[in-house]
């Protein structure tokens, strides 16, 4: 389907044109992202219910999260979203060097996010701020507090898995960009990976205030 000449791509035979193929791929991606909203939606509903039932517990427990780390990760993720958007527009303009640079930056920022997350998680593990029966923190007395950390790990964990998958697909388009497979005529994979990455950012935009700030 693609050859080594920059961004030359022959659309599949069941599409009338490359444009049709592009639009169809993009719409497919949007529909996939809808299913992602539904998946995270279940967790957000659980959050809403438990927060409504035990507002005092949520308030007490959220103070044990590191706001600075969360805020740092928000900055990291937003910056990576920006570099991803720039990688897409560079590809569209045919500036392969910049595209590679922005994709690498995005990947590195994603790594930073996971490193911060690692420090946060290990701190929680050390303090016994863990889900359900594994909870063993002396300071946080509320008997329902393990529930908060179940939600915390489920929500940030599922998001973390998305970051990992995002890194995988970013590496994949990076490799193909280096090989010169994308250009102004064909950049569908770069754009769609971009969508996925922005979605990961979008989820975090809600997770951060809900867990760290207003708990």
């Amino acid at each position: 389907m693609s050859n080594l000449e920059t961004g030359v791509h022959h659309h599949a035979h069941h599409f009338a044109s490359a444009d049709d193929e592009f639009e169809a791929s993009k719409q497919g991606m949007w529909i996939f992202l809808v299913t992602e909203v539904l998946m995270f939606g279940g967790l957000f509903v659980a959050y809403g219910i438990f927060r409504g039932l035990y507002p005092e517990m949520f308030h007490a427990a959220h103070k044990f999260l590191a706001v600075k780390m969360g805020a740092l990760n928000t900055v990291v993720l937003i910056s990576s979203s920006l570099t991803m958007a720039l990688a897409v527009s560079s590809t569209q303009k045919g500036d392969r060097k910049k595209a590679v640079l922005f994709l690498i930056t995005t990947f590195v920022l994603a790594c930073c996010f996971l490193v911060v997350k690692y420090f946060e998680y290990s701190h929680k593990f050390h303090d016994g701020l863990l889900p359900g029966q594994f909870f063993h923190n002396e300071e946080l007395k509320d008997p329902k507090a393990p529930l908060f950390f179940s939600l915390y790990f489920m929500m940030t964990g599922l998001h973390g898995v998305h970051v990992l998958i995002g890194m995988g697909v970013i590496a994949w388009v990076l490799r193909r960009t280096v090989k010169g497979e994308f250009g102004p005529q064909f950049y569908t994979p770069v754009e769609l990976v971009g969508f996925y990455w922005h979605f990961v950012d979008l989820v975090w935009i809600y997770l951060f205030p809900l867990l760290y700030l207003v708990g």
Partner: protein
Amino acid sequence: MEPHTEKHHHHILPTKVALGIGGTLLFLTFVTVWIAGFDLGPLNFTVAMIVATIKALLVALFFMNLYYDRKENAVIFAASFLFLIIFIVLTATDLFFRGDVYVKGPLMAAAPSSGSKLKKPWIATPELVAKGKQLFQQQCVSCHGVEGKGDGPAASALNPRPRNFHVSEGWKNGRKVSMIFKTLKEGIPGSSMASYATLHIDDRWALVHYVGSLNSDSVPVDSADDFKKVGVDITQESGGATEVATIPLDFAMERVAVEEPKVITQAHEYTFAEGYVPRPEGTAGMGSQIYQVSCAQCHGDKAQGGVKVKKLGGFTHAYVTTLPLSSEREGMKSQDAFNQVVIQGLPGHLMPGNGQLSSAELRELYQFIRSVNVK
């Protein structure tokens, strides 16, 4: 190359716009962290969600190109959020308003349905007013204030404001004794005045007279018809109010759990569902019959134990072997201990609780297992 690849759909996000959006997102992150530092009460949540939504919109519209894209993609994505809102709102509505489900019928001996024990309770007496004052201090002051001026600590948050009983005008249901009684029984829909039908009817009468006494204007006189309309028959001494009270389900459950913990640990007659008739005591073979249906599967046909029971859940699938139900075991030492184990189960073990049995059935079952005489 394709002749028509460069169409208007292929929008390239200008670098300036991208940087502008990125900068705005970082700025909004700073704003939301900064505002969270102030204690604004419930407003904190609202502000954080508004800021997050602005950020999400910027990401979706510009980074994800929805602003320039074909509108159907925006509709597809927005639909998922619409679904999410319905999901959250309906679930919350169900869960947080379950208290509004009412149960009918007497729950306990002292349920509010048991009618007045007073004579002509609609006539104010100094005793009733004094009792009403006492109840008022427990039940009403948080909204109506210590002196009934509608200035309690919670009043400022309420709309409409709680009634000032010292002013004669503006009472929703009027100031007649029958009408105050109605207000206490039914509450005032559309305001924060809840139904106090959970109070015993005599307590409500006392409150009615205390509230009436707060105003220097005389209380308007009721006719027999006025009373009839609110379910009070003044031709009978007690007022004939043998109404079946409806009380909120969660209130009923709280009362059972907190005030009457024994209801849970012992089989009292009044815990049975309406229309349930326990089998008469001493029915031949009743204990053995219940045992075979409810117990034999795990404890063996002669209470000898040794049955392997599969333990599901937890981290591993495991088999547990039941022990014989010998008379040395705690739960077999007395009828009370036995009842407790059967009704509550053994938390942390596989023994489930069974609250369906009547005290007569529990006695028969206990006798049966002892008669098997397991060593």
